[in-house]
């Protein structure tokens, strides 16, 4: 039965009383994902914001293990193989959970290997565009111009200097592996998000979901606006909703949604406060070009 807002379980698998920031969207992603995957899930969580929440207080109601930051993919592989060796693989879900650092940067190698070898797991990346747990340093997914702890805004250099074109696109990287199912999802479109997690859990192989996860503390907006900023990201096409099957069949969601200017998304965040009009235009051009590219991929099906 298709999962939705109305039939999502009321059971909480993560005890409240954690040490995360108020309004943390990453914890919300974790909370909802585990609700979809259910009780018979083993969760593997890389070092990062979500892990820190768990290890400080949040007792999980499901088996949970902390993976080394470079090794979420490989730990998942070992658990998958170990359960198979014991004849216990059936009826157990595996959920890998990591931030952009543990997925696109230091964790990329082990995730790539795990996907290439076709182990069976759902992998969710909460992309808050930086290494937030260690103080907000830049990562491979930090967008152009963003102020971070290691790309601060100063006289000689103003935020992340690397152009948006060089930003790692994890869902396309996963597609290049021919992964059975890869998608982007957003907290602002919760029904779509829940259904994608369910779809991923039903794949007999690896499945990847990338969730742009606004970080109120490091991106610089009020705690209550986490979902609103996520919504703006989709409405401005900064974070398109994409589904890719077998690495080839692209489906672009909300194609007919009227587009909002990228400026609205940028102006909502303190980390972009310093951008000039020219830089905002540059961001708009990059977003438009990417959208057009994705549209062509979707139409090619």
């Amino acid at each position, binding site marked *: 039965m298709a999962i939705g807002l109305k039939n999502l379980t009321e059971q909480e698998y993560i005890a409240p009383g954690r040490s995360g920031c108020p309004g943390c969207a990453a914890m919300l992603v974790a909370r909802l994902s585990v609700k979809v995957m259910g009780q018979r899930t083993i969760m593997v969580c890389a070092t990062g914001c979500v892990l820190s929440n768990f290890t400080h207080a949040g007792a999980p109601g499901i088996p949970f293990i902390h993976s080394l930051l470079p090794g979420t993919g*490989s730990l998942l*592989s070992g*658990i998958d*193989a170990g359960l198979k*060796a014991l004849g216990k693989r059936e009826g157990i879900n595996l959920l890998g959970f990591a931030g952009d650092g543990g997925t696109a940067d230091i964790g990329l190698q*082990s995730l790539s290997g795990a996907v*290439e070898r076709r182990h069976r797991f759902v992998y969710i990346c909460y992309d808050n565009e930086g290494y937030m747990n260690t103080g907000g340093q830049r990562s491979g997914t930090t967008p152009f111009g963003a102020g971070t702890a290691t790309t601060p805004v100063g006289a000689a250099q103003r935020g992340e200097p690397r152009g948006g074109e060089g930003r790692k696109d994890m869902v396309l990287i996963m597609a290049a592996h021919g992964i059975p199912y890869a998608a982007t999802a957003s907290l602002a479109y919760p029904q779509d998000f829940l259904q994608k997690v369910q779809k991923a859990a039903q794949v007999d192989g690896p499945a990847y979901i990338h969730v742009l996860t606004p970080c109120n503390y490091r991106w610089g907006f009020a705690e209550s606006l986490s979902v609103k900023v996520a919504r703006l990201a989709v409405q401005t096409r900064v974070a398109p909703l994409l589904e890719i099957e077998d690495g080839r069949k692209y489906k672009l969601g909300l194609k007919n949604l009227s587009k909002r200017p990228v400026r609205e998304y940028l102006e909502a965040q303190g980390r972009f406060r310093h951008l000039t009009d020219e830089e905002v235009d540059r961001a708009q051009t990059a977003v438009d070009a990417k959208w057009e590219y994705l549209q062509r991929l979707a139409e090619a099906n």
Partner: protein
Amino acid sequence: MSRQYFSGCQAAAEGVTLSRPGVIAAYPITPQSSIVEILAAKVANGEMSAQMVHVESEHSAMCACVGAATVGARAFTATSGQGLAFMQEPVFWAAGLRLPIVMAVVNRSLLAPNTIFCDHQDSLSHRDSGWVQLYAESCQEVLDSVIVAYKVAEDERVLLPVMVCLDGFFLSHLYEPVDVPPQVEVDAFLPKTAPKYPTLDPDHPRLLNVLAPPEYYTEFEYDKHRSLTGAGERLEEAFGEFAARFGRQYHNLEGFYLHGAKLVLVGMGSMMGTARAVVEQLRAQGVPIGLVKLRAFRPFPHAALTELLRGVEAVGVMDRDISFGSSGVLYQEVLRAFYRQERRPLVVDFVVGLGGRDVSAQTVHHAIVELERVRREGAVTQDVVWSDADRTLLSAWGLEI
């Protein structure tokens, strides 16, 4: 019981097969690759039903072994040199998580300079990790050590991973006759029981690998240290049971020609074979020389060592390694063994066999001559002797030794 002509790699693979692993996750690296190739062939032929995970790096190999062990499967990996260095993070992690993983380390030195050849730098650089370390001298010992490794690792009083070390090329690629124990006997020696440690199980949700704050981090470490030190006795128990069942008696360290010995060489690995031959020869000529071969480097058998070396006047430690800026590592352990003794022998460190340099009979002989000179002088003027260094080459480079 069958007798086969095996290389060290083949013997390791045979030991692994007999131990019935659930998961084998490994990455190729010279000179270990044959071990994994043989195991892959056995799986391909249907002779073994392990899950082979052909990981994309050694770091992933150890993480995958941890994953397999945390759900209760028996895990194995193998590596050498650079590979062991690359997996250092999860090597320490596995010991801290108290998982009974067994790893074959085909000893290979560490870059730079670039090399693929043997010394003990790789495994000894991980001596602080909390792993049990066993060093094999012969192919028979390699096979037997793997089986004993699982026995000790899975003992609930230990619950620590075990490294079985064999010298790269000198042992891994050396062919020797090996007695292969029958599978049914190994199954009796290594019964497959439910894991004696908490696992990831949806029926019993647990959070594994927690943060331990300063308030109780020390106590976790003490528990690990205590289990590792106690593993010395567990090893002796396992060796005893192994001898009863398979007829070959091993110990954490073994003495040869110690009766009346005034000089003794101490070392580990395949070079002990050469050393024993030289010692035997010199003994026949009346030289009061003996030999102690170390099998277990971790936990280090300090008490047993001082017991064996009681009354010895001079000890020559053969270190196939060097802790740069200090001395060989085995030497430091031997000194610790004697520090609290009332009567201490003179101890000299012979750094030999680095980077695949053969520890020849001549090298051993040279060390014994030097040791005898020290004994006669009654004092150690130079405690670390690079005894097989080429003085001609060094002086051509303008270096004194």
